[in-house]
Structures are given as structure tokens and as C-alpha cells.
């Protein structure tokens, strides 16, 4: 039993090392400033809880990305009950990425653009930004690769219309 838990802890540690930047990016894209830590914590909890159920159909990183994205998409602000609030993880993260006042022009533009997209388009955009291959991204979203390309093309047009004129 202890061995299984240690394995899970090691897998989790490895995942966090490799993917924390991506997960923080997802939290940033789906939660308002000040609520990002809550969402990030929720994502970590879901990944930890679900690790035992990973069946190896996809790589651990892709699997964790999917869990993080599903958690973010269905996460509701301020729904943590008192029990969760009491046991909340506290970590010394002074500022989430993108919270700094001195954002570059590009970063500001990108964050504005992400905020203007619908939840699902934002997910597709995040997959693009995180350089997830199209086939994997389509699988994560549950749509065909062709449909994903078309949506991405529309997002590209939307970006160009808003920021490249």
C-alpha cells in the first residue's frame, strides 16, 4: 500500500516538474486574478486523485493536461465548501505568471486575446500555445483533427483582425 502511494507521489512529483508551467497557464486562462491559486489547487487535487486511474492509453503528460483542462472548464468560482477552504493548500506564490504589472506588450495582447475567446476556443488556443500536436489536441477536445484545424484557423483570423491591423 505504502509502495503504491510512493509510486503515485513520485509520478506526481515528476508530472509537476515537467508541467507546472502549462498548468499555471491553464489556471491563468480560466480564472480571474486572485482566484487562480484556487483553480490551480483544484487541478492539482484532481490530478493527484485521478493518478491511480491512469490506464496508460495516453502519455502521462497528455493525460494530466486533459485532467487539468477538464477541471478548469468545469470549475466554478467560489464553490469551494468550507471544508476545502479550511484545508486549502497554502503556497508562497507571490504572483502567478502574468500578474506582474510590468507585462510586455505582447504578453498583454495575448492575455487580452485569450480573455476574449469562448471557453472552448480558449482551450484550443491553449493547446496551440503549449505546442500540443494537432492529433493529440483533437483527442483531448474530443473532436476530429479537421474540425480542430478549422477552429484554429478561425481563431487565427480573429486574432489577425483584432491585433494585426
Amino acid at each position: 500500500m505504502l509502495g503504491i502511494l510512493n509510486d503515485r507521489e513520485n509520478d506526481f512529483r515528476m508530472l509537476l516538474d515537467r508541467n507546472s508551467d502549462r498548468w499555471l497557464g491553464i489556471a491563468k486562462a480560466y480564472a480571474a486574478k486572485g482566484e487562480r491559486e484556487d483553480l490551480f489547487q483544484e487541478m492539482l487535487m484532481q490530478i493527484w486523485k485521478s493518478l491511480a486511474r491512469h490506464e496508460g492509453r495516453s502519455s502521462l503528460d497528455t493525460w494530466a493536461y486533459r485532467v487539468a483542462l477538464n477541471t478548469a472548464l468545469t470549475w466554478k468560482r467560489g464553490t469551494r465548501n468550507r471544508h476545502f477552504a479550511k484545508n486549502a493548500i497554502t503556497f508562497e506564490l507571490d504572483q502567478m505568471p502574468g500578474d506582474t504589472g510590468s507585462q510586455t506588450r505582447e504578453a498583454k495582447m495575448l492575455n487580452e486575446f485569450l480573455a476574449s475567446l469562448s471557453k472552448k476556443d480558449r482551450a484550443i488556443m491553449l493547446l496551440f500555445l503549449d505546442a500540443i500536436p494537432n492529433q493529440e489536441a483533437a483527442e483531448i477536445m474530443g473532436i476530429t483533427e479537421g474540425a480542430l484545424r478549422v477552429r484554429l484557423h478561425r481563431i487565427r483570423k480573429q486574432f489577425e483582425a483584432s491585433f494585426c491591423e
Partner: protein
Amino acid sequence: MTFDELKESWKSQNAGALSIQQRETLVMQVCRRAERHASYIRFRDWRETIAALLTLGAFAFLTLFKIDDIVSSAMAWLGGVIVVIATLHILYRYHWARMIEGANDPDASVRDYCQTEVRRLDHQIWLEKNIVWWHLLPLLGGTAIWGIGMSGIDKSLPFYLGLLVATGIASHWWCQRNIRRKLLPLRKELLELSAENDVPV
């Protein structure tokens, strides 16, 4: 700045946001929080099961062993039986919702995940919308019949029935409020998420 250059900007924004030490602290905290959460769920399940079993035991005992004359106390006997059956049914419903229906598969695609969430939510909405029929009426109705059968019609009866009706109204109001405020908006949002996938390309 071109669309493809956004990747680099995104990468540099998020790179190295957590130090090694912070990550290590997070691992420890997540493990501890998960343990606490699991024990909280266990405690909640036990608490609810014990409450139901106590109700079940008490009414079964009173009905089977304390009513000597079934003919003259037919009403109390009937009430007791209704409460016992209602409690078993409620236990089964909770068990069904938690154990058999189970949690959503976090590894599902976004589309499947949203659709499963909508189905689960629909079930929850149905349960709360119809709480009068499967929970309140059998349980409180059975208790009311049992009470009347046990003590007959006396001065305390209006108070007893009033208390049961007030409990029923408050529970019903609470559930309908929960549907309006939490479940329906969440359902709408999930449906919108699922529908976005169905836009013809």
C-alpha cells in the same frame, strides 16, 4: 507580432513560475490535503449511513415489537412500514448516486466530460426537483401517520404535524433554491460548452 509568435510569448510568460522548493512543498501539501479529503468523505458517508440505519432500526423496532395489537394500531404500523421502506429507498438512491453512477472520468475528452457532467447534473436536478415524492412525502408522511397512530388525535397533534410540514417546506425550498442558483446555471454553461463542439465546420 504574428499568430505563431504567440507561442514564444506564452512560453516566456509562464516559464519557471514555480521554484523547485515550491514544487516540493506543493507535492507534500497535495498529498496531505488528499488524505484529509478522503477521510472527510469516509466520515460523511458513515455519518449518513448511521443516521439512516438508526432511523431504520428505531422504526422497525417500534413497529415490530412495540405495537402489540396490530388491528387497533394499524395506522402506526402502516406509518412505521412506510418510514422503513422510505429509508431503504433513500439509502439506495444515495448509494446509486455515489457508488454505482460514480465520478466522471477525468481522462475523458473535453466533449465527453461535459456531456457526462450534464447527464449527472440532470440526474441531480431531477432528484432535487422531485424531492417531495421520493424523500419528503414518504419519510415525513410515514412519520406523520406513525405519530397519529401511536398517540391518537390529541392537543399536540397540530404542533407535531406543523413541525413535519415546516420541515418539508424548508427542505423543498432549499432544494429548489439550489437548483435555481447553482445547478441550472452550471447546466447552461456545460451545454454551451458541449454545443460549441457541434458548430458545423
